[in-house]
């Protein structure tokens, strides 16, 4: 369906001629800022073949030569304990792909005592290597010291000190890259046995005159509050409320702006293209589809702005620490909380936020759970359906019943998401060992605006490049289904349609469309849920975006105002079959429909983004399949239970 969704997996072909340089290092070592400083905006993201591990590759110019640079998954050691680390080892071994020609080992100067153990393991592989010492400014500021030349002598490989996010030392690093063929290698490879390695590390550190950085005073003072059992929890919830408010409330007017802009655009097309069918295709289908892509951008950009801010400052690991126990119940870890919270706004940014999870299994489990969280697009559907189901005046205790039903649906989404994550984690791959959990607590730092902008830009551009095709295509296909075949005015008048009444015309078009045929075709499947073919058409049209359901049903029911079709729906009766003449929207049907919407994956954009993030069609198909089956079963259950109580 979308060509651009297939190209993940390999960086551009011409890169393969260039010398391949790979960045290795621990998470938090500053790998990404060195990578960004070397490659700038030219980085490409994709996936390693067949696995849910993102691949970052770009090119870097040094002197008159070009290099292909790849940012490998971060790791603390070369004995893999996760899929991502297996990829790292496979790349270093050249297993299934070309091995890098040279390595840049990025090391945080403030954690040298631990990091040199990793350096020892990498050097033992014998590839030409250069150590890139990051955060040297921080080491000095905290009264630490290290002699870079002596360290280079002791290690037997070149060492370059950089301050990645400021660009310091990057010119020197580029110069060093030019000589990669002549990089010295250690005369005796460093020991790999942990006991011998500790002795080797101590001797290297003492030769390099290493003085350890003093504990970061501000970090100690902030952590005393932010990680305090009570205060820390209060601050955490305050931060999350602000976070959610920004993604949810601040994005809303921006999204409204995008929608209004495309609305004006499509009206302009309607006014200037006389052929009604062509004007519909251009104005509603094409422009609507492009608008349907761009409407996600405010949320995605705001979310990544906040995530990279929280991550850059160092709060993300604190939040993960505070939430780990709770998320552990679902088999996930603390960092998954942010992804699931974002999914309350929209599953698209939520699924993209799973990039912050280091384990592929956790990313998959979170992605499979995210579509269950009640997203903003379900809200208009819920509002209309609850309005039909519950009398606005009805109360339960001091609470309005409508509000309680809404709350119940949000709760249903959250609980089923946690259950789904748990199930996918538990049964997803029972052969493999559980990944151990560990998380470095970096000192609080001021993130660089450049790093944040790059993160926002990267998220937005990869979404546009990889997902716009599938969303535009879905919108266009659905428009065609809902509007074809064509009917002439005479044809409609012949069947007694008042062609002056636009509501009657659009109802006639939908009633005789291919979508209606599909709706009738699948009627036996949805009949046990009480859905008639018109609801099926609405459910089908919701595939491009859930909120479309309301307008489509309004159109089918020939409502005066398709955006508020409550009265027309109440009056709707089954047109044929054994229930002909009975009202369609009875309590059991509405309950079934609400539950169906709570579970079903009725969002092709989500399918597209899961495809993009996992690099295969397997996971979006699994998600679509399991959610559709679950939705049907739960809707049937809801219908039966409601029918039992209502009678």
């Amino acid at each position, binding site marked *: 369906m979308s060509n651009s969704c297939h190209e993940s997996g390999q960086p551009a072909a011409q890169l393969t001629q260039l010398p391949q340089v790979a960045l290795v290092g621990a998470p938090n070592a500053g790998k990404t800022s060195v990578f960004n400083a070397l490659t700038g905006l030219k980085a490409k993201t994709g996936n390693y073949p067949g696995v849910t591990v993102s691949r970052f590759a770009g090119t870097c110019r040094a002197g008159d030569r070009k290099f292909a640079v790849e940012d490998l998954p971060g790791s603390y*050691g070369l004995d893999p304990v996760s899929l991502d680390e297996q990829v790292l080892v496979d790349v270093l071994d050249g297993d299934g792909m070309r091995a890098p020609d040279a390595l840049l080992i990025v090391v945080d100067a403030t954690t040298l005592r631990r990091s040199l153990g990793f350096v020892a393991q990498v050097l033992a592989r014998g590839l030409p290597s250069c150590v890139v010492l990051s955060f040297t400014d921080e080491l000095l500021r905290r009264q630490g010291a290290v002699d870079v030349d002596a360290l280079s002598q002791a290690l037997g490989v070149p060492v370059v000190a950089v301050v990645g996010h400021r660009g310091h030392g990057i010119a020197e690093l580029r110069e060093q890259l030019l000589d990669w063929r002549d990089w010295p290698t250690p005369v005796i490879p460093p020991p790999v046995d942990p006991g011998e390695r500790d002795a080797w590390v101590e001797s290297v550190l003492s030769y390099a005159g290493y003085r350890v950085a003093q504990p970061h005073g501000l970090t100690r003072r902030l952590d005393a509050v932010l990680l305090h059992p009570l205060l820390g929890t209060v601050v955490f919830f305050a931060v999350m409320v602000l976070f959610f408010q920004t993604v949810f409330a601040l994005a809303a007017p921006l999204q409204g702006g995008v929608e209004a802009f495309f609305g004006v655009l499509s009206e302009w097309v309607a006014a200037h293209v006389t052929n009604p069918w062509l004007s519909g295709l251009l104005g509603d289908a094409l422009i609507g589809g492009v608008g349907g892509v761009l409407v996600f951008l405010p949320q995605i950009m705001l979310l990544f702005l906040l995530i990279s801010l929280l991550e850059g400052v160092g709060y993300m690991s604190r939040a993960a620490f505070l939430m780990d126990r709770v998320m552990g119940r679902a088999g996930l870890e603390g960092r998954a909380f942010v992804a699931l919270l974002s999914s309350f706004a929209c599953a698209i940014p939520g699924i993209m936020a799973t990039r912050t999870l280091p384990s592929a299994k956790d990313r998959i489990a979170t992605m499979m759970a995210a579509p269950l969280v009640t997203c903003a697009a379900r809200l208009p559907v819920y509002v209309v359906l609850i309005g039909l189901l519950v009398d606005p005046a009805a109360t339960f205790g001091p609470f309005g019943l409508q509000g309680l039903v809404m709350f119940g649906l949000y709760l249903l989404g959250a609980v089923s998401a946690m259950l789904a994550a748990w199930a996918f984690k538990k049964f997803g791959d029972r052969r493999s060992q559980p990944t151990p959990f560990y998380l470095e607590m970096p000192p609080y730092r001021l993130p660089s605006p450049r790093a944040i902008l790059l993160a926002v830009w990267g998220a937005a551009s990869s979404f546009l490049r990889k997902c716009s095709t599938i969303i535009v295509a879905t919108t266009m296909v659905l428009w065609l289904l809902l509007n074809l075949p064509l009917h002439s005015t005479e044809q409609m008048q012949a069947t007694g349609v008042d062609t002056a009444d636009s509501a009657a015309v659009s109802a006639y078009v939908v009633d005789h469309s291919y979508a209606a045929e599909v709706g009738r075709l699948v009627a036996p499947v949805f009949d046990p849920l009480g859905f008639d073919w018109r609801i099926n058409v609405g459910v089908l049209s919701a595939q491009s975006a859930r909120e479309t359901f309301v307008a489509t049903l309004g159109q089918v029911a020939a409502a005066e105002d398709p955006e508020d079709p409550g009265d027309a729906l109440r009056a709707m009766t089954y047109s044929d079959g054994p229930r002909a003449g009975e009202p369609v929207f009875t309590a059991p049907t509405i309950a079934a429909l609400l539950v169906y919407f709570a579970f079903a994956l009725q969002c092709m954009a989500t399918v597209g983004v899961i495809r993009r993030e996992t690099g295969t069609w397997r996971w979006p198909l699994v998600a679509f399949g399991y959610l559709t089956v679950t939705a049907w079963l739960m809707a049937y259950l809801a219908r039966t239970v409601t029918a039992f109580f209502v009678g």
Partner: protein
Amino acid sequence: MTSRTFEQGTDGRPRAEARYDQRTLADLMPTATAQVVSVSVPGSPAVARRLADLGFTPGTVVRVLRRAPLRDPLIYQVKDYEICLRRAQASCVNVVEVDR
């Protein structure tokens, strides 16, 4: 992987006291200080190896910094940096408490 694998300390000090002290990192309260004796993860040498890569090698001094609100996970200071471990992993690191 047996608990004997990493019992050779780097400073060569005898670890006879380890035989009588079955404590692990998970048993310690915040601000306690301890020395790693061994790392044993039954059935998963890669995880044992990873804990060593994170800095939990025999002879290394570890300090418990704090506990999460629900008592798990915990933050430790080891080899000049701070790392958070779940109890499940912390209980694989056998230690002797030392006075600081």
